[in-house]
């Protein structure tokens, strides 16, 4: 996971539990992922440009959709941190791909938590779409990294 570094602006506090907390965590995760993709982009070779920009756009969309959902319930969304500590050091295109894969896998975990905590069909549908999107992008990064097979049986799960 990317970890936030202290921000000047105090972020709204996390709801104690349940669907709002899971969605809050997913937004916080997406903030870190979008930040991280900046780093991935900086270290990637041109042949993965499309993958990087599609993935980044996808995560931006998920973040905005999730923030809108929190807003509609009067739950303040977390703010992006000033910076993030990346789980691995990125110094090459291969590192960049590894970080991207890690972030997709972590995002799948966050979205599965949203799915399990959700109390409406509509929220669950949204979470499954997000989870699937992360699984597809993760598979594409495994292709870049030549990981075989490029798919896993339980994206976001520990089964």
């Amino acid at each position, binding site marked *: 996971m990317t970890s936030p570094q202290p921000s000047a602006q105090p972020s709204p506090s996390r709801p104690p539990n349940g669907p709002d907390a899971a969605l809050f965590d997913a937004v916080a995760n997406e903030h870190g992922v979008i930040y991280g993709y900046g780093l991935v982009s900086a270290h990637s070779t041109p042949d993965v440009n499309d993958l990087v920009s599609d993935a980044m756009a996808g995560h931006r969309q998920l973040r905005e959709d999730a923030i809108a959902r929190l807003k509609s319930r009067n739950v303040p969304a977390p703010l992006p941190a000033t910076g993030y500590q990346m789980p691995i050091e990125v110094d090459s295109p291969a590192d960049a791909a590894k970080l991207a894969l890690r972030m997709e896998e972590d995002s799948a975990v966050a979205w599965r938590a949203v799915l399990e905590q959700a109390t409406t069909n509509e929220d669950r*549908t949204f979470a499954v779409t997000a989870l699937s999107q992360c699984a597809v992008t993760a598979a594409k990064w495994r292709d870049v990294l030549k990981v075989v097979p490029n798919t896993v049986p339980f*994206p*976001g799960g520990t089964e």
Partner: protein
Amino acid sequence: MSKVPSAHPAVSRRRVLISGAALALLSTTAAGCGAPAKRPDVEALVAQLDRARADSQLAAGAASAARPDVAAALTAVAAERSAHVQALSDEITRISGEAPQASASASPTPTSTTGEPLPPPKPRDVVAALKQSADSAAQAAAQQSGYPAGLLGSIAASCTAAFTVGLGGGQSS
């Protein structure tokens, strides 16, 4: 960002078992004088289990006739769908107290059992089946809650990744 709680690990296996047992007790008491009603959540999981088993057999059958690189991807799909069979079977056993019938332990037979020498399925047949399974699991996930919803969501995501990336959308058929 530092931690993302999942509903599942927070609940111990024992607690799930106990609450499952309590639920089972409750439903038998509630259904007291009526015929034992089939639980819709269990039925939904059984339907997904049947799909997973069928997809696994279809992918294994297609792998036997595909060229090596495609065969490897199809074999991976077969293994993933088998893993889904196992996880669904475990969950059905946990919530209903009994293992699903048509035994999940029965090993899939890659060849047709009808005796008719059908041509082996094509990779595009597997892609089509996975597409349907992804939709079906996603719909089932939306209608469940808690851990079963999460499990079905991961299965839907796995099927989607398998047909879009793993099998490349069927271009190689």
